[in-house]
C-alpha cells in the first residue's frame, strides 16, 4: 500500500522521487518513527500514551536548560532521561495501581508536566541550545555522504525494540498483557510493574526522539506539545497495524506505518497545503484507520469495559 502510494505520488508530484527529497523525507519521519516505536510498546500492552510528546519535550527542554546553565552535557542528558522514566513510571502507576483508564491518565499527566515545566523551568516557549555543543548537533546531521543520523537512530531503535519484544521474556509478557490483561495476571505475570515498564519505555524512546529533535534544530520548542504531533504518532501506530485492542502488531508494522505517513506528509508538504488542511486530511485518515481497526478487531460487547 505504501509502495502504491509512493508510486502514485512519484508520478503525480514533481520532485518527489529525487534523492535529496528522499533524505529529507527520511530525516523528517525518522523522529516520528522513533516516537511511534515507543507508542507501539504501550499500545501493544493495551494502553495509550498521550503524554509522550509532553514528556519528551519537557524532559529534553530541561536537559537543554541544564546544559546551558553549565552542567556537563552527559549528566544533563542522563538527568532528562531519568526524569522521562519517572514520568513514565508515574503514568504506569496511575494506570495499573489506581486503575485510571490510560487515556485519562496520560491526558492529565501531559497537562501537568507541561504546565509545571513552563511555569517553573521554561518561562518562554522555547530553549535554544547555546553554541559550543556541536556533538549534540551531530545527532541531527548526516554521515556517510548524506545518510541522516536520525534515520540510523531509528534503525537502531527499531532493531533493539524488535529484539526486545520478540526475544525477551518481558517483551512476550507485554504481548500477553495486551492480549488479555486478566489472563496475564492470573497466569502469574506481575502486570503492575509490567505496565510501569511499558510506559517508562514509551517515555524513554520518546526522550531519545526528543534529544534528536534538539540535535536537528538546536532548540526545543514546547509548542510541539500543543501541536497535533501526538496524533501523527498514534496515526503511524494504528495505520501500521498495531491494533488499539492490544496484543497485536510488531516493529515491522510501525516501520510500515512510518513510511506510509511519511510519504503522505511529504506529499502534502510538496503540494504546499497549509497546516490546517494537513491536519484535516490527517484527521480524516486517522478516523478511517480507527474505523477500520474497530472493524477488523471488534470489541466483544459482552466483556467490553467502558471508558476506553
Amino acid at each position: 500500500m505504501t509502495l502504491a502510494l509512493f508510486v502514485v505520488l512519484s508520478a503525480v508530484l514533481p520532485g518527489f522521487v529525487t534523492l535529496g527529497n528522499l533524505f529529507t523525507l527520511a530525516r523528517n519521519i525518522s523522529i516520528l518513527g522513533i516516537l511511534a516505536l515507543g507508542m507501539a510498546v504501550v499500545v501493544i500492552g493495551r494502553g495509550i500514551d498521550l503524554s509522550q510528546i509532553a514528556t519528551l519535550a519537557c524532559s529534553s527542554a530541561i536537559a537543554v536548560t541544564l546544559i546551558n546553565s553549565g552542567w556537563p552535557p552527559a549528566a544533563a542528558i542522563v538527568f532528562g532521561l531519568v526524569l522521562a522514566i519517572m514520568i513514565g513510571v508515574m503514568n504506569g502507576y496511575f494506570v495499573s495501581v489506581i486503575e485510571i483508564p490510560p487515556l485519562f491518565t496520560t491526558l492529565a499527566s501531559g497537562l501537568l508536566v507541561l504546565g509545571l515545566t513552563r511555569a517553573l523551568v521554561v518561562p518562554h516557549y522555547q530553549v535554544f541550545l547555546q553554541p559550543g555543543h556541536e556533538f549534540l548537533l551531530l545527532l541531527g546531521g548526516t554521515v556517510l555522504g548524506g545518510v541522516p543520523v536520525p534515520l540510523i537512530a531509528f534503525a537502531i531503535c527499531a532493531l533493539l525494540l524488535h529484539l526486545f519484544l520478540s526475544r525477551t521474556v518481558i517483551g512476550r509478557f507485554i504481548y500477553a498483557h495486551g492480549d488479555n490483561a486478566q489472563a496475564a495476571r492470573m497466569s502469574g505475570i506481575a502486570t503492575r510493574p509490567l505496565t510501569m515498564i511499558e510506559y517508562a519505555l514509551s517515555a524513554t524512546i520518546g526522550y531519545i526522539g526528543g534529544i534528536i529533535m534538539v540535535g536537528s534544530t538546536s532548540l526545543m520548542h514546547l509548542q510541539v506539545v500543543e501541536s497535533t504531533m501526538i496524533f501523527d504518532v498514534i496515526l503511524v501506530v494504528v495505520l501500521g497495524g498495531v491494533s488499539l485492542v492490544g496484543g497485536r502488531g510488531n516493529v515491522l508494522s510501525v516501520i510500515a506505518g512510518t513510511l506510509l505517513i511519511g510519504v503522505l506528509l511529504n506529499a502534502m508538504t510538496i503540494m504546499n497545503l497549509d497546516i490546517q488542511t494537513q491536519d484535516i486530511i490527517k484527521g480524516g485518515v486517522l478516523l478511517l484507520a480507527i474505523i477500520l481497526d474497530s472493524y477488523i478487531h471488534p470489541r466483544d460487547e459482552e466483556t467490553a469495559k467502558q471508558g476506553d
Partner: protein
Amino acid sequence: MEPIVPFTLLLVVFVAFIVMIPGYTSIPQLQQLMRSFPEQGFVAMAMAVSILSGGLDLSVGAVFAMADFLTLYFLMVLEWPLPLTIVAVMGWGALIGAINGGLIAYAKTRPFLTTMVVLIILRAAYNKITGQYAVELAGASSDNAAWDYLGGGFLFGIPINMVCLLVVGIVAHFYLTRIRSGVHIMAVGSSRKAARHAGIDVKWSLFMAYVLSGMMASLAGILYAARQNSAGTDTGVGWEVNALAAAVLGGISLSGGRGTISRALMGAAIIFLLINGLVQLGTHGSLTTAIIGAILLAAVAFNVKFVKNKGKLLQKIYVTPSLVEFEPPASIARDSGTVFAENDRLKNAEAIALDKIEGPEDIILDEHDHLYTVNRNGSIIRFLAPDYEVREEFARIGGRPLGMALDRDKNILVCVAGMGVYGVKPDRTVFKVTDETNRTWYRFKDDSRLWLADDLDVAPDGKIYFSDATTRYDLSDWALDGFEGRGNGRIVCHDPATGKTSTVLSNLAFPNGVCVSHDGRSVLWVSTWLCRIYRYWIAGEKAGQLELLVDNLPGYPDNVNRASDGTYWLAFVGLRSPVYDLAMADPAFRTRMVKQIPPDEWMCPGINNGCVIKFDDTGRVLESWWDPGGRSHPTITSMREHKGYLYIGGLENNRIGRVKLPNGDVNWTGWKSYWSSNGQNNSGVAPSNVRPITTAKAKHVSGA
C-alpha cells in the same frame, strides 16, 4: 460520589477567593461571574451527557468554537434572522453529534479517540475558516434587540444566559431521570450489557447521547457569540479538558451511568471559579494548566477508587437504625392470665403437605376446598381436597410469592417479592397486576419500583390494597430492615378499573399484613417492627384517615385475615423480648453491631417462635393459639379460616398446619365472606377506642 462532595468543594473554593480577592462578592462582580460562566456550564453538560452514556465527547470544545463562528457568520455576514440562525447552529451541533454518535454507536469505534480526532479536524477547520473570514466578521455588526438582550440582558438581576443555563439544566435533568429515552441513555451508560439484555436499543441511545452533547455545545457557542461578538483563535481551546475535569470533579463516574446534571454544573462552577480566581490573582497561565491536570488526575483517581469500593463502604453505612421505644408488652407467660398467655392449642395441629412445600408464607382455599399456597421457588402449589395428599404446581410466576387473596372472579392475586403483584386465573394463566407505583415527584431517587410486595387484599370496589414492606432491602436481607425500624415501607393501591397504581401511605415501618375489614370500609394493616395494627379508612365519612387500632403487641405481627365470627386472625411471626426491645431503643448499639460483627453474631428479633391471635374491630384481643417451642410451626406468617378449620402457614416452614376451631362456622369461606351478597357483615359496629394518629415520620437518609 455523593453530591455533597462537589458542593463542599465549591463552597471551599468560593470562600477561599472571597478571602483572597477584595471585592469578590460585590454585585457587579458576581453578575460578571454569572455572565461568563454559562458557556462553560453548557460545555460541561454536553460532556456530562456523553460520559453518562458510557463514552466521552472531546469534540465539545471545537463544536462550541465552530458554533460561535457560524452564529456570527449566519447572523452578520449572511444576515439571517435570529431564530433561523439558532436553529441552523443547533443543527450544526446535532450534525457533529450524529457523526460522533454514528461512528461510536454504529461503527463501534472508541469514544475517546474518535471524538479526539473529530476535535482535531474541527479545530483545524475552525482555524482555517476564521482566518479566511476574519475581515468580513470584523466589519459586520448586528443591531438586533433580541440578540443584544441575549448577550447582555438581565432577568431579575440574573444574566440572561445564566437563566438559559438553569432552564436547560433542569430540563436536561428531568430528561435523564424521567423521560424514557433519557433514562435509556443512563441505563446504557451504567451497563451496556444489561441494557442490551433488557431490550434497550443501545446503539440508538448512544447515538442520541452524542447528538444531545453536540447540540448543547453549539448552544454554548450561540450564547458566547452573543456575549463576545467575536471568534478568536483561542476560543474553546482546552475547553474539553476543563469540561472533563469539571464532570469528573462533580462526581460523574467515567465508567458511565453514575452522575447527574447538577453535579456536572457544580464541577463546572468549581473549575470556572478556580481558573477565574487564579487569573485574578495573577497566576502563571501554565500553572493553571498544571493545576487542571492535577485536579483531573486526582478527581479521576478518587472517582475510580470510590466506585470500586462503594460497595464495601455502603455495606458499612447502609443500615441506619432509628430509635424505636417500646413499653413493656402484656405478658405471654403461661400462668400470667393475659389473653396472650401461652397454651397448647396448636400443638396437635395436623400437618398437611409435610415436606412437600418450602416456605408456605400464605395459604388460601377456594370454593372447592382446594388449598393453594406459595412455594419458595416461585410457584403456586395446589393441594387437592379433601385429604390434601395430591400436590400439583398450579402456576409458575417466578420471584418469591408471598401474600395471596381471591378476587371477585376467583382469580388468585399474589404479592411477589421483587416483582410486584401478579394474578393467576382459574385456568392457570398468569397475569401481571402491577409492578410499579407512582413516582414521588419531589424525591430525587426513583421510588416507583416495588421492592417487597408482601400482602394484599381486595376492597369491595375491586381496588387492591397491598403492602410494599420496605424499599431499602430485597427479600434476601429483609431482616436488615428490622435493625433499622425505620419508615421504609408503604401501602399501595392498585385500581383494576383504571389500571393505575398509587401509593396511599408511605414512611411506614415494615407494613406487612393487609386485610379489608368485614364492613368493607377500612383496611387493616400491621407494622411489623412497631408491633402495631392500624386501620386506614377507605369509605364513609372518615375515608382517608389513619387510626392506630392496637399498640404494643407482644409479638411481631404478620398477616391478618378475616375470621368467621366477624373478627380477625393475626399471625405473630416472632416474639418480642426485653433485651431486643432495649436494643431497639439504642440505635447506636445496633449500628455498631451491624458494622463490627459478622451477621451470624447479630442479635435479631426472635422469629423462631410465634403464635396466632384473634382480635375484633374495636382492637380488643380475644384469644391466642400457641405451639410452644415452635416444634411444628415456627415463624408463623399467616393463617386462614375455612369451613371450621384454621390453616397455618409459615415463611420458613415445611408444612401447613390444620386445627379444628371449636366454634368456627362450618359453612364459612373466605371467598363467600368477601364476594357473596350475604357474606358482607355490615354490622356497622363503630369502633370505640380508636384515636386518629399521625405516623411518626422517620427521618430519611437517601441512599446514593
